[in-house]
């Protein structure tokens, strides 16, 4: 049963998942070419100092990418189910509705985490050829809350899409927007490092929020 569900989810998200990976790689290639260009034009030391002294973020083009990816995955995974009552067909499968929704969410989170790992791996590979370990390490630590924003966006938008009532969908969309924006406020390196565990709390809460609109959908709420 889970294997069939996995195949069904894969069919829905494969193109957007692939597009998200391609977009991520494209942004990494852009960062690498931009670094090569500024190193050539301004000299390496000025680029290093702009980071160590002025906290310039050469990877800021990655800031909203996880949010975009989370949003797109949630839309592609849940919109086809939420319209034309298709979810209600799925609810007739011999699997508990809560388990079904959580399984779908776990698959979506898995897809996001795979792209996050590709991003971090690619980013470290690109950065290490231009910068010493201190800058590379400070940079990917700075990006961790952005990945968390991606998880918040995915979970929040998935909840909003499953919700059958448009008015509540908007409320859930707003909650998602404001919550995700908590993770992208940073203006200097490593600003969140000491509070990352606390910022994980809203994400943990969001992992189960999809159950409520799922229940409402099954009950036929409008």
């Amino acid at each position, binding site marked *: 049963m889970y294997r069939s569900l996995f195949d069904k989810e894969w069919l829905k998200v494969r193109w957007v998942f692939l597009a998200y990976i391609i977009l991520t790689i494209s942004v990494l290639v852009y960062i690498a070419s931009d670094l090569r260009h500024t190193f050539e034009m301004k000299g390496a030391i000025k680029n290093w100092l702009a980071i160590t*002294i002025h906290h310039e973020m050469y990877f800021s083009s990655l800031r909203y990418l996880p949010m975009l990816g989370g949003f797109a995955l949630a839309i592609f995974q849940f919109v086809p189910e939420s319209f034309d009552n298709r979810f209600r067909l799925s609810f007739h499968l011999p699997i508990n509705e809560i388990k079904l929704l959580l399984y779908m969410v776990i698959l979506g989170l898995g897809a996001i985490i795979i792209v996050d790992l590709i991003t971090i791996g690619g980013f470290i590979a690109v950065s290490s050829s231009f910068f010493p370990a201190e*800058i590379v390490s400070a940079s990917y630590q700075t990006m961790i809350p952005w990945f968390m924003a991606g998880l918040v966006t995915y979970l929040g938008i998935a909840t909003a899409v499953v919700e059958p009532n448009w008015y509540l969908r908007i409320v859930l969309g707003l909650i998602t927007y404001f919550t995700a924006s908590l993770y992208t406020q940073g203006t200097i390196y490593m600003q969140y490092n000491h*509070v990352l565990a606390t910022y994980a709390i809203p994400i943990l809460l969001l992992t189960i*929020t999809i159950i409520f609109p799922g229940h409402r959908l099954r009950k036929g709420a409008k």
Partner: protein
Amino acid sequence: MNLKKLSRYAIILVLIISASVFLPRFYHKIVDKSTRSPIIYYSPVIENFAYFQHTGGHTAFKDGEGNNYSRKGYEKLLPFLYYRDLDKWGVLPDTIQGVPTDITSIRHNSQRIRLRAYNLDQPTIDLYPLFESQSDYTNLSYPPELFRINKRIEFVTAHTNKINEKMSRQFTKDLKEKGFEFPAQLIAGNPTTRKPFDEGYFIVDNEGNVFHLKKVQDSPQCVKTPIDNNLNIRKIVISESVRREIYGFMITESDDVYLISYDNYKLIKLPLKNYNPDKMDFSFYADPVYRTIKYDDNYNYHAVVFDSNYTFIDSMKISLTPEEEKLSTKVKQALFPFEIKTMKSFSSLLHFDLKFQSWLSLIGILISLGIGIFVKIKRKENIKENWFDFVLIIGAGIYGLLGVIFIKPDIWD
């Protein structure tokens, strides 16, 4: 409680978290007024404090006795500060207290150093440029490498992103010979080319000893300073000035402030009352006659003045209305039972601090509870089954109310 109910409460809790960050922030954007900070100096003309403060659409210029001045009259009290205006008006005196007041002399004998509280917790990327301190050229230029200190001092060349082994060995050897114990606890310098010359870095080694490291003609010049290694130094601020009186200052874990003098690194302890480095901005200002230290927490503005030998002369404190006493703060406390602060005035970090308001919050909680009961009765909700909604309103006031109203309970199995 079943998972479906838990899921609804999870949504409400996320809403409460977001609302408690953004609603108080939004409230501040609507009601905040400038705190109108006073700017205090010490006048060598009247030998008293002189300050100005923006109040009610105009600027008040006053001295320490409360006498009012015009802007021109005020500037005449502070010739070391407004010498260009006084020179333009042709009223710059030749000497003040026997000190010549030509523009070059004033410039060469004035110095400012600032330390903002947020500099204390700012995350650092521990790579530093070591300038050539005795260059053949007037202007300083950035070196081609940055250094780090771990088990040894290492110079990493930016162009190649590789360690310059020769330089790293040479500097490590010199530091060890001077008694430096790796790694470093603190590295402090002034990494800018916008300074008249370079004094290198003050580095606290693993045993608390302070070393002064410079690069002179591409070679290390390291001095083990006589500064006590038990001071628990928290921050050193270096600022090169042609006055060559002090290298800068340092703050210890016990909030003591010491100036580091050019006289064999002799420390000058500043007697500053109620200075809290974590919650106050600090500034040192030297003019040809006085040394003025100022520190403030946005509400209490302190100024302490010393003569050129750092003998205490006078001090002044101006207090503004505390935040808690403002009407807008009281309304906020009644409206919001708590807030989550992600940004703080004196910190460069992001936070997630839950700050409870005062007993005034009870007003907001009771009103929210009343509205909550009314809405639920009107909507004919099953109150018995959703009693926890009221717990949320009692605990989170307006945020809880918004949560339980927007996210209505459903028919549970």
